[in-house]
């Protein structure tokens, strides 16, 4: 029986909603047209594949099972009784492989020298062997490089095989007939269909190979090194994906209803309704966002302190804090979209088709729902797509100043926060910061590219 935390439920519900929207979109010709132009864009499709890979990890990391399911062997990171996610189950090997402290990527010895007592009683000032990293090697100096290469090649082969299987599935799904299969492969190779198949398949290949190599190496090594208390950085980075994606998406859900309802009301009814709403968002806008968030987080913490019984476990506590952060970010970031929607509604309400509907005696609710809302859709879509990446970055900044997610939650912000001290060490510990940076970059860049393509397709001023 899966255990679900509030953020998991909301996130999965959101995905369900998005899927429903997708089905609806496919049936509407005027919505399908701009999406088709997004699908023709090579950079957008490459971005989409990468985003989907991230999304898949986030989904896997949002479905929790009780810890007992995966046996008594996993007593490492999660205390007994705490549910673990499907991702955790998949990554049990590296989750449990905890070292004492820092170690460099792919290292077999620790990052810092230690005084150790040898078997013969002598005390040596040397780099100690790691508990897990490369423990299968008898003579690391000689075997290390060969072993790495062998495992990497194995991983490469596995990745290629995985990609091949994936290809067959895609081809079967697209072609639907035996000789269509060959045609599909041919047209994909020559890239002569409208959809940029070649780019998409190559991106998939890259992802599969990377996953294969990482998986093969991480069986016996810490591919991205370990952190201060010996935790695997790759595991941390992968777990951070859920935090980033969740903040990017759930915040939007908190933003949208406010921005939509208030923006439309202000624009359509004007007069005092407009005055009140404008007053509200101008006031909110003139308070520094960080200040509001900090205050709200403090209030939330004191609430948690008062109701300690409800937040018994570490996981529920961290989860509540994450949810609160999403809500607070949402509360402070709806004003921009609201302003945009108000202006557009002001314009739309004077348009002749809205007036014609009024003359026909269509009720106001119907006018708002059928004439105003669908014509605001492109603005909502564009701003959601553009906001996603800035929210992911906002999380990093907020965690850096300690008002973001719970310190026990894996997040890129927390990793960067921790790296503050690591950068001052000698020799420098660079891998935490670098991993956080690369993972975040690989999410934000495709998100931005995809948002650009969406904007180009949906913005009426840019089409033509």
């Amino acid at each position: 029986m899966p255990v679900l935390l509030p953020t998991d439920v909301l996130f999965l519900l959101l995905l369900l909603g998005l899927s429903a929207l997708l089905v609806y979109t496919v049936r509407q010709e005027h919505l399908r047209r701009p999406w088709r132009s997004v699908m023709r864009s090579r950079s957008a499709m490459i971005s989409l594949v990468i985003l989907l890979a991230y999304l898949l990890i986030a989904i896997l990391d949002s479905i929790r099972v009780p810890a007992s399911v995966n046996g008594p062997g996993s007593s490492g990171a999660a205390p007994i009784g705490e549910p673990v996610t499907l991702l955790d189950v998949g990554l049990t090997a590296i989750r449990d492989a905890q070292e004492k402290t820092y170690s460099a990527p792919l290292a077999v010895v620790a990052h810092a020298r230690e005084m150790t007592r040898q078997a013969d009683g002598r005390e040596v000032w040397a780099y100690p062997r790691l508990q897990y990293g490369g423990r299968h090697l008898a003579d690391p100096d000689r075997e290390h490089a060969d072993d790495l290469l062998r495992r990497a090649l194995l991983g490469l082969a596995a990745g290629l095989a995985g990609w091949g299987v994936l290809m067959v599935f895609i081809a079967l799904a697209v072609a639907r007939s035996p000789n269509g299969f060959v045609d599909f492969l041919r047209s994909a190779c020559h890239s002569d269909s409208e959809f940029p198949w070649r780019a998409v398949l190559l991106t998939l290949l890259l992802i599969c190979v990377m996953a294969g190599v990482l998986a093969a190496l991480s069986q016996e090594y810490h591919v991205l090194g370990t952190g201060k208390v010996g935790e695997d950085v790759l595991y941390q980075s992968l777990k951070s994906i859920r935090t980033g994606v969740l903040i990017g998406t759930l915040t939007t859900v908190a933003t949208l209803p406010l921005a939509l309802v208030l923006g439309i009301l202000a624009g359509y009814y004007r007069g005092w309704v407009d005055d009140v709403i404008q007053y509200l968002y101008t006031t909110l806008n003139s308070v520094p966002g960080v200040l509001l968030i900090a205050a709200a987080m403090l209030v939330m913490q004191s609430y948690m302190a008062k109701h300690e019984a409800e937040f018994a476990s570490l996981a529920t506590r961290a989860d509540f804090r994450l949810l609160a952060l999403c809500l607070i970010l949402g509360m402070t970031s709806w004003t921009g979209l609201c302003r945009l929607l108000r202006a557009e509604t002001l314009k739309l309400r004077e348009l002749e088709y809205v007036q014609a509907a009024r003359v026909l005696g269509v009720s106001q609710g119907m006018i708002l729902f059928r004439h105003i809302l669908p014509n605001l859709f492109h603005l909502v879509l564009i701003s959601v797509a553009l906001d996603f990446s800035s929210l992911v970055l906002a999380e990093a900044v907020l965690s850096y100043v300690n008002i973001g997610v719970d310190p026990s939650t894996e997040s890129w912000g927390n990793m960067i926060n921790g790296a503050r001290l690591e950068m001052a060490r000698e020799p420098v510990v660079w891998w935490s910061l670098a991993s956080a940076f690369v993972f975040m970059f690989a999410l934000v860049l495709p998100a931005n590219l995809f948002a650009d393509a969406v904007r180009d397709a949906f913005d009426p001023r840019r089409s033509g």
Partner: protein
Amino acid sequence: MTSDVVTPLLSVADLRVAFRQGPEWVPAVAGVSFEIGKGECFALVGESGSGKSVTALSVLRLLPQNGRIQAGRVVLDGADVFAVSERDMGSIRGGKIGIVFQDPMTSLNPVLTIGQQIAETLMLHRHLKGAALRRRSMELLEQVGLPHPDRHLSEYPHQLSGGMRQRVMIALALAGEPALLIADEPTTALDVTLQAQVLDLLRRLRKETGMALWLITHDFGTVAEVADRIAVMRAGVLVETSGPEFFDGPQHVYSRELLNAMPRLGACLQRESPEEERSFPGQPLLEVEDFKVYYPVRQGVFQRTVDHVRAVDGVTFRVERGETLALVGESGCGKTTLGKALLNLIPATAGEVRLDGVSISNATLGVRHKAQAELQIVFQDPYSSMNPRMIVGDILEEGLRAQRPRMAPAERRERIETLLLAVGLPVSARSRYPHEFSGGQRQRLCIARALAVEPRLIVCDEPTSALDVSVQAQVIRLLKELQDRHGLSYLFITHDLAVVSELADRVAVMHSGKMVEMGPTRQVLFNPKNAYTRRLLDALPSLHKGHGRRVGP
């Protein structure tokens, strides 16, 4: 015919221009050749999309990004325009060729004064400075007939009226002392009295400066007033080029069709029932008494109302059953405001509106809801009057859903199909989107939408003025047909007196919120009592006045 003798100023040979749409190149101009002599007035006439503006833009090398000149040669004063560098092109544009665009509202920079904008051109092309610059600017404004040149120099575009702005635009085009002035629909956005003034101005300037004028327009009325030579363009090809004898009998079938489709003031004289008035028995359908719409002018911290703009100022009229009452006036006279206020789209300030003898201005919501179905509206712009996100079927059904929520879906569908056929569109239009239709077809759809709830009066707010001449005639024919079949009444709001003559039983002329004259069409158009009505009629190009003369085949 002087043009054959003099050497041409501009010669265009086999010009071909195409635009990229997706992967394809769609031809816009397909091999056009013509010449414009020195000091000649050449008119390029065609309907929208015929490629006439694209031809002018190609000559200036100002095509948009997705356009490409595929072939052709343009020679201006002996120099190949397509061969010169982009830098030298700058001295041709504005220097040798001046251009005046259609819309005087968007062609001037709103943050620069008129003086600054003229000075910019003068400095660039005539290298004037200081006092000489100012003197020349004043001269130019005087030349285009602005009343206070020194004051206008320091004014901003928004302080001038539309007609004055168009004059400034012409002054700007003249600043470089061009040998050729291209005027792209220079009068289309202007009121009829201003149109006449601007045409006069262009004619006078041509005489004074000796420059050639290339007029691009869809309006034969304008052409007949000024042009020496006329070329008719259709789908990127010149179908006919001829002199002023064009108006005695065009050679090409298409030119004849266009010329015949043009509404004429004399049309009302040719009606089948020549009696002065059709009789309308019984109670009038709509009675409007002392109707007022005021907009408050607010000032100060507390937004106190200090004054009112009297958009509609005490109007009284009635519309009989099955009658068409035309409401005529220039822009800003309050005719559209009146139409919208009758439909409650704008709150009325005072006055009474009775439908079938029942007052609806102070009625309860229920009565008003019922009355709403009886009064419908068709708007001017067929592009913004339908929701682009809905299919045609849903758009047409909307009124039925609101007015008769209990109607069965099958019955509703059947009604929509009947309506589509009634306005001359196929039943399959139901499941398509508005953008898939042309302007004229969209206007048919708007009429069908209004008809769906079985109204008795339709307010037509300039329903034909955004359409091409030939389409305009079709829509008017459709309106007449529907009137005969359903006994509809129309309140037809327009600025075009010629259209009025084709359609209206009675005409009401509005000026500054008041009705200055009302009477049977024939009387108002041919025997106006009011000075303002006379002024409107005088300003009409003489071709429109051509008393119903049809050009024989």
